[in-house]
């Protein structure tokens, strides 16, 4: 696609959110990804979710690594600062940013190469630190930007477009995330907006580390019959675990769901996640069930999607570090500098 400027049409009929903004206010610059790339659907999912949550775009910080997926933050929330950092290191940049200012919403965008290979170390450590952020992996099983090499999430035996079948075991990111202590773990599919948007909304509202592994086929290098990350494959093998409706704090909580088929999860801010259970006795608050379920579906060659695990009472890095409620970056000389008098007593202790 060419680098043309996005046309700006003003449509007075577009619905407005609580801030009086329309979905157009959540857009970024025109995508330069391949037409049909799954990543673009994730971008629009993020726009939709932020719009529906009435988040002012400039209160979001978008941070990414390197890859086609990591380019996407330019394509949404144009009024938010973005940081396309270095390959595999988005988590550390996000950690520093979040520690400096706890008041913004942090969306980290990454790819499967960015997260499961070069960035695996930072991925698990940002989870351990319970950073309050939404971490999205646009998972296509390949290195899109470097033209189609196998990634570490590509299933064993998968047939790449060229070359032999993938001989290596794959890394399952949602399993890893749960094991490392992530407190919100979901998997979705870029082609399934109905599932993805509520998940993103719930993830953004979640306090603590929220992870969405979003299967996002690469139409150029990895969307053919032999690939387990292709549109067709995922559509055929998708086992949706739960349908979810996310109700932000401001809305009245409705009881649309018949008792017995739904489960409500209240989040720290009072908002409610409404899960429509397909699997009868699935409780997303139970880690062991979640892992067990994942293993069983994996063994059956099924891709389990939905909210896999959540701890609604999670804490975050700032709780652990006991940092001040005022963002660190707002602190001034009077808060930070002990002053000349104290320095003379420090001097005295060294004399």
């Amino acid at each position, binding site marked *: 696609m060419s680098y043309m400027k996005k046309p700006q049409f003003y449509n007075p009929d577009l619905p407005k959110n609580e801030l009086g903004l329309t979905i157009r206010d959540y857009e970024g610059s025109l995508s330069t990804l391949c037409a049909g790339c799954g990543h673009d659907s994730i971008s629009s999912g993020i726009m939709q979710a932020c719009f529906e949550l009435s988040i*002012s775009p400039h209160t979001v910080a978008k941070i990414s690594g390197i890859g086609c997926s990591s380019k996407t933050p330019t394509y949404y929330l144009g009024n938010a600062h973005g940081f396309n950092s270095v390959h595999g290191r988005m988590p550390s940049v996000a950690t520093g940013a979040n520690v400096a200012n706890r008041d913004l919403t942090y969306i980290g965008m990454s790819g499967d190469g960015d997260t499961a290979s070069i960035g695996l170390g930072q991925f698990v450590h940002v989870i351990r630190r319970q950073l309050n952020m939404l971490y999205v992996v646009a998972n296509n099983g390949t290195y899109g930007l470097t033209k189609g090499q196998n990634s570490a999430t590509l299933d064993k035996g998968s047939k790449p477009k060229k070359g032999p079948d993938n001989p290596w075991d794959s890394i399952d990111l949602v399993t890893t995330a749960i094991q490392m202590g992530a407190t919100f773990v979901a998997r979705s599919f870029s082609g399934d907006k109905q599932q993805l948007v509520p998940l993103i909304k719930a993830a953004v509202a979640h306090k603590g580390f929220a992870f969405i592994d979003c299967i996002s086929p690469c139409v150029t290098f990895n969307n053919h019959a032999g690939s387990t990350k292709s549109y067709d494959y995922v559509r055929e093998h998708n086992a949706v675990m739960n349908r979810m409706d996310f109700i932000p704090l401001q809305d009245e909580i409705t009881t649309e769901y018949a008792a017995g088929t739904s489960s409500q999860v209240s989040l720290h801010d009072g908002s409610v996640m409404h899960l429509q259970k397909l699997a009868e006795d699935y409780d997303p608050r139970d880690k062991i069930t979640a892992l067990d379920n994942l293993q069983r579906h994996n063994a059956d060659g099924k891709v389990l999607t939905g909210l896999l695990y959540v701890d609604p009472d999670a804490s975050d890095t700032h709780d652990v570090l*006991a940092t001040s409620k005022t963002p660190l*970056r707002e602190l001034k000389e009077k808060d930070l500098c002990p002053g000349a008098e104290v*320095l003379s007593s420090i001097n005295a202790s060294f004399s």
Partner: protein
Amino acid sequence: MNTITAVNEFVIRFANVNGTGSASANMLFAKSLFRMGIPVSPRNMFPSNIQGLPTWYDVRVSEKGYMGRRGENVDMVVAMNPQSFERDVKSLAPGGFLFYDSTKYIDTGKYRSDIQWIGVPLMEICQREYQNPRQRQLFKNIIYVGALAALLEMDFDVIKDLIASQFKAKQKLIPPNIHALELGYDYASKNFDCPLSIKVKAADLNKDKILIDGNTASAIGAVYSGATVASWYPITPSTSLVEAFEKFAERFRIDKETGEKKFAIIQAEDELSAMGMVIGASWNGARAFTATSGPGVSLMTEFLGLAYFAEIPVVLFDVQRGGPSTGMPTRTQQSDILSCAYASHGDSKQVLLFPSDPKDAFDIAADAFDYANRLQTPVIVMLDLELGMNDWISDELEWDDKREYDQGKVLNAEQLDKLERYGRYLDVDGDGITYRTYPGTHPEKGAFFTRGTSRDEYAVYSELGEDYVHNVDRLTRKFATAAELLPKPVIYKAKASAVCGVVYVGTTALVQDEMTDLLEQDGIYVDAMKIRAFPFHSDVKKFINKHQKVFVIDINRDAQLRTLLINEEDFDPAKLLSIRHYDGMPVTAVTIVEQMKSALGISDNSNAEKRA
């Protein structure tokens, strides 16, 4: 036999086993001399190991104020380590004093007869006095300090006071420690002719001075300068810098009522992550830093390139050591000059600052945050192990309460409202430094995308060669601004007019007085210049141009400082004579002077006439 005679001018070496608690006893000794008003420079030589290996602690006592390492030979050895005994005996100058534990018989004649042997039955005294083996070990150290007090005629009250202040929080430990001191003192007084012919004498030379190491001073500088985010990965010799930051932050930055911390320290999973966090925090408007050593710098290098190009302030303390891994890491060098100056891929270059003593380290640490923010680029503070981990006599630290933190060119919402169009990389002032905004500043204006890829003045992605060139040429202009903003070199004129100059950075300053005195004794006069920052200030060039020959002192094998000078300023390489020292021990004045003289073609015993 010749016996060394010296008052306030000697070196004493403590040879101990790592992990036996000797460090605090040795520190007690050095600090007592400091409190007696005598210039001292203690130096630790320790292995990359936690317990069981030899360590040495050299204390140079010098009323003349020579605080650099004197050399291999010492005047007295306190030989507490059987493992290194032979080597320690050898390290003594003829006529020197060997203090040892005489509990077990040692055939002293077997070793050397040209030295004085001073045997004190330390273990025997401990066996008699203490039941518990741990106590025996610890008090043995205090007993030898007591004995030295008598032998060297130290002020006993000063030592007692120090013990009292050391155990202020554990009062009940004071009497047994003082008792141990007295045991040593009494034994030495009764059995030897005290004082020896080397001894100390109270002076008044440490007025308004403190005894502090460079890592601690830097950490206090970071606290004062408002650093709120520290992220790091442990590595000797930088670890104590972050630990000191934590200690002082815990003391001064916790809200008494709420318990909230006005700082965050994160031990990262590696140095890449440590640097990433600093970049993220600085991008978001906090003052952030990390500390590491050479291997960590290597890991941070990709990120340093990003920060340079994306123009993000970073403060990095590099406490240099010998490379690459175990073996030399507990030894000092200045061997990261080039890897830091040119850290990263592509067209990148970094700002370096070179503190030369603890007060300077404090000032430079505090200033580094202002420079990084003003210049919107990484600033690497180049310490070394010699400065970072040894106690130095230093001027007191000073702070002006009127000082405000300089966050550089940052636009707020009102300022953005007044702008027609904001350009993140638009050079409106002509100094190469552009205006940034913090995330979350304004609902519609000022947001931009930070990236390592090329972009135009409005932060819009661009692959045009001309945009790239325009941008990196501005960064060159910014570097020229930096050169004049950063600290100027300090120039020390020789007593007589000199055609030669000598140039160095950092801790080499410690040997400067001794070096110039030694040269003067031979009638050689040189002007000296201590470079404090890179990019080089224009005065650096002036100094070098003014002298016919300039010695460049490098504490590394490949003359990195000299290379940097030649590369950046186009000096004639023939004019810059290289002096190099890189065995991991702090450089001595003698080493430098010998190399200078040989470069000038002056043999050691000739003197006078030849004026350089």
